[in-house]
């Protein structure tokens, strides 16, 4: 008898119209407990290398974390994983909200979707059973209408709906998934994969309670109550609840690390028009994810120069900086409208803003002109042009067809100097965190299997002062030596190695980046207690770090199979040239230092420093020898699958 999981995975083949359920035993789950690990296991076993990301052969895995749905703040996340149409590598994106917990309550740990339906459909999952239903009448509809129609059809207003928007239907390479309209699996184009399967939505309803799955429900419930009481009294939780991520804008600008004009600059001269004081004038409230006391999600509604309705999530920091400073738009109303459009249309706001900032720089340099952009003066600061481009990208109309491919492909098509303006790693646009001011984040951008991502490790400023709350709370992870934000030496590499494994473990457990140490709303020991209470396993911090590392290595093996090498673990050239303005003007990453740090990181990970591939020895140590060459597509797998 396993605890903490349902022991069941739903398998859906949309070409055949078939549905089945696989079961797995406790030994399997201890190696691949959920989320990223559980999904990567299936992707590696079942996706044949070289398959089209937008073809029926791609496998879309929607996987809850081990703790997803537990009555513990931040245990809300689930992963969407497939081969990415944006990067061609391991695609992954997590979201909070309510859908993941509901899937767990419905008796399933994950859904595997393959094939392609001849006509638009949606999937209806209830208490372990599933049905493929006609969605022809929903195709092309706006997300609120789709959600309302599904609830109406199913006669249950509490059905949780995960869906794509128009961008996903149109297979824009950075289309996203949304649940409950307000929570997004934004990155790596998982919405395009779902759209390519003619799958508009997955509706879920479950009647279970997580505590009924737990080995020790009393301890789990007690931990949840203690955290719910502690969190509102924690300074950083107070910050997230009171200000949320938009509170970052001022600090980023003051430190010279607010990406501005497509990462040319680090400070924005119109920051006061997009900063938190400006944000407060538009914000209408805050919201929460499932059972989370942090309550960090912003709500926004206004009607003035632009109109924004409180239908989707308000702009987070990534949208504020992406459409604000990085596109040089000093108008928070326009930024909020761009954010709302991305959400309504189902576009990843980071890649959408990054691709438009790239196009603006191309326009400024004369590489493209009004004749290319359907007459739009696509210059930095032109909010109207940016808003129009968002719609054209989602519809793949006019110049939007090119930008819908992402900045890397668009740059190759435009030619000339354009590739040097495309701020991406492995084809995925950079989030709004400047590696020239936090170089460890740059190391993470470069090495992450899914491309540039800011949530794969701890950011450098947390480890400068040994007396700070974040630093002290990371001691339980073995982090004991402070380093500067610009240091790329061995201490920084060791911190990064630890933080990547821990963050990966969060993605396996279903915990939000905003919860566990070093954010320290939830201590490392609390996470261990939660896993023990949920499963009955005698896990330690080291085992959780290894679980995280196993998931990273599976993602790496996936990329190696698709032809990725060390040469793909690179940063845009611009980051090795000086920032143009702000407190860090003149600062650049030293290329030799970066390459040495990369080598040191590979060696710590047990990867070949020449190729960037895991060594056979390391794979064996992690119990991943089955992923070695040839063990693909249904070959014998380790871990005790029982069904």
């Amino acid at each position: 008898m396993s605890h903490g999981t349902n022991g069941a995975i739903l398998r859906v083949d949309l070409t055949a119209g078939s549905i089945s359920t696989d079961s797995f035993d406790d030994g399997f789950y201890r190696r691949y407990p959920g989320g990223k690990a559980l999904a990567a296991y299936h992707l590696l076993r079942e996706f044949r290398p070289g398959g089209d990301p937008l073809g029926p052969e791609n496998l879309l895995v929607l996987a809850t974390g081990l703790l997803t749905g537990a009555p513990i703040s931040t245990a809300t996340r689930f992963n969407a994983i497939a081969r990415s149409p944006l990067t061609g590598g391991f695609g992954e994106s997590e979201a909070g909200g309510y859908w993941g917990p509901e899937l767990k309550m419905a008796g399933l740990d994950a859904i595997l979707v393959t094939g392609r339906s001849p006509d638009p459909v949606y999937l209806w999952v209830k208490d372990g059973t599933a049905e493929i239903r006609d969605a022809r009448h929903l195709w092309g509809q706006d997300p609120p209408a789709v959600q309302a129609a599904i609830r109406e059809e199913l006669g249950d207003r509490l059905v949780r709906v995960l869906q794509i928007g128009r961008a996903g239907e149109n297979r824009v390479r950075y289309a996203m998934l949304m649940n409950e309209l307000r929570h997004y699996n934004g990155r790596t184009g998982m919405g395009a994969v779902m759209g390519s399967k003619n799958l508009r939505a997955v509706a879920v309803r479950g009647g279970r309670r997580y505590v009924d799955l737990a080995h020790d429900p009393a301890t789990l419930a007690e931990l949840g109550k203690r955290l719910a009481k502690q969190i509102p009294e924690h300074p950083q939780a107070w910050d997230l609840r009171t200000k949320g991520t938009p509170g970052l804008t001022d600090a980023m600008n003051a430190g010279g690390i607010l990406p501005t004009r497509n990462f040319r600059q680090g400070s924005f001269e119109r920051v006061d028009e997009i900063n938190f004081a400006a944000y407060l004038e538009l914000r209408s409230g805050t919201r929460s994810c499932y059972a989370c006391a942090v309550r960090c999600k912003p709500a926004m509604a206004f009607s003035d120069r632009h109109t924004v309705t409180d239908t989707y999530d308000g702009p987070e920091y990534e949208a504020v900086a992406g459409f604000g400073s990085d596109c040089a738009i000093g108008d928070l109303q326009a930024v909020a409208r761009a954010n709302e459009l991305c959400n309504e249309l189902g576009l990843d706001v980071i890649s959408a803003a990054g691709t438009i900032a790239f196009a603006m720089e191309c326009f400024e340099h004369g590489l493209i002109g009004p004749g290319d952009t359907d007459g739009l003066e696509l210059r930095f600061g032109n909010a109207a042009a940016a808003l129009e481009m968002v719609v054209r990208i989602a519809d793949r109309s006019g110049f939007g067809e090119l930008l819908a491919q992402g900045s890397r492909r668009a740059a190759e098509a435009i030619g000339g100097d354009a590739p040097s303006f495309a701020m991406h790693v492995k084809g995925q646009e950079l989030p709004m965190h400047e590696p020239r001011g936090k170089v460890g984040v740059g190391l993470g951008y470069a090495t992450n299997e899914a491309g540039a991502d800011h949530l794969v490790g701890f950011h450098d400023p947390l480890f400068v002062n040994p007396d700070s709350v974040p630093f002290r709370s990371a001691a339980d992870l073995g982090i004991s030596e402070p380093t500067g934000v610009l240091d790329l030496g061995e201490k920084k590499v060791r911190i990064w190695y630890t933080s990547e494994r821990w963050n990966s473990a969060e993605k396996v457990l279903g915990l939000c980046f905003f919860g566990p140490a070093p954010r320290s709303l939830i201590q490392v020991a609390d996470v261990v207690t939660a896993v023990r209470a949920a499963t009955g396993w005698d896990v330690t911090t080291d085992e959780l770090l290894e679980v995280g590392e196993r998931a990273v290595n599976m993602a790496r093996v996936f990329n190696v199979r698709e032809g990725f090498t060390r040469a793909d673990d690179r940063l845009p050239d611009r980051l090795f040239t000086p920032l143009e303005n702000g407190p860090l003007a003149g600062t650049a990453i030293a290329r030799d230092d970066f390459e040495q740090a990369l080598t040191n990181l590979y060696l710590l990970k047990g990867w070949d420093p020449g190729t960037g591939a895991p060594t056979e020895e390391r794979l064996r140590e992690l119990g991943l020898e089955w992923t070695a060459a040839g063990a693909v597509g249904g070959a014998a797998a380790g871990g005790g699958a029982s069904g």
Partner: protein
Amino acid sequence: MEVHLGGHLAFYDREKRSRFEVHLDAETALLDLVRELGVPPAEIALAAVNRTVVSLADARVGDGDRLDLYPPTSGGA
């Protein structure tokens, strides 16, 4: 002088204010002012006086200045 406590630093103000005025009779060491405000120095990653980054340990401030204090920043959503 105008004081801005960025991020969670405002949590340490008795009234949890992010922006407020304080009166200084004379120029004072920034670190002394920070302690008087009740903000733990270890939580401050960046200090700026009149929008210029300064050393928390060495800077001095006067009544007409604008002070911005920020904690370490991490990822956004």
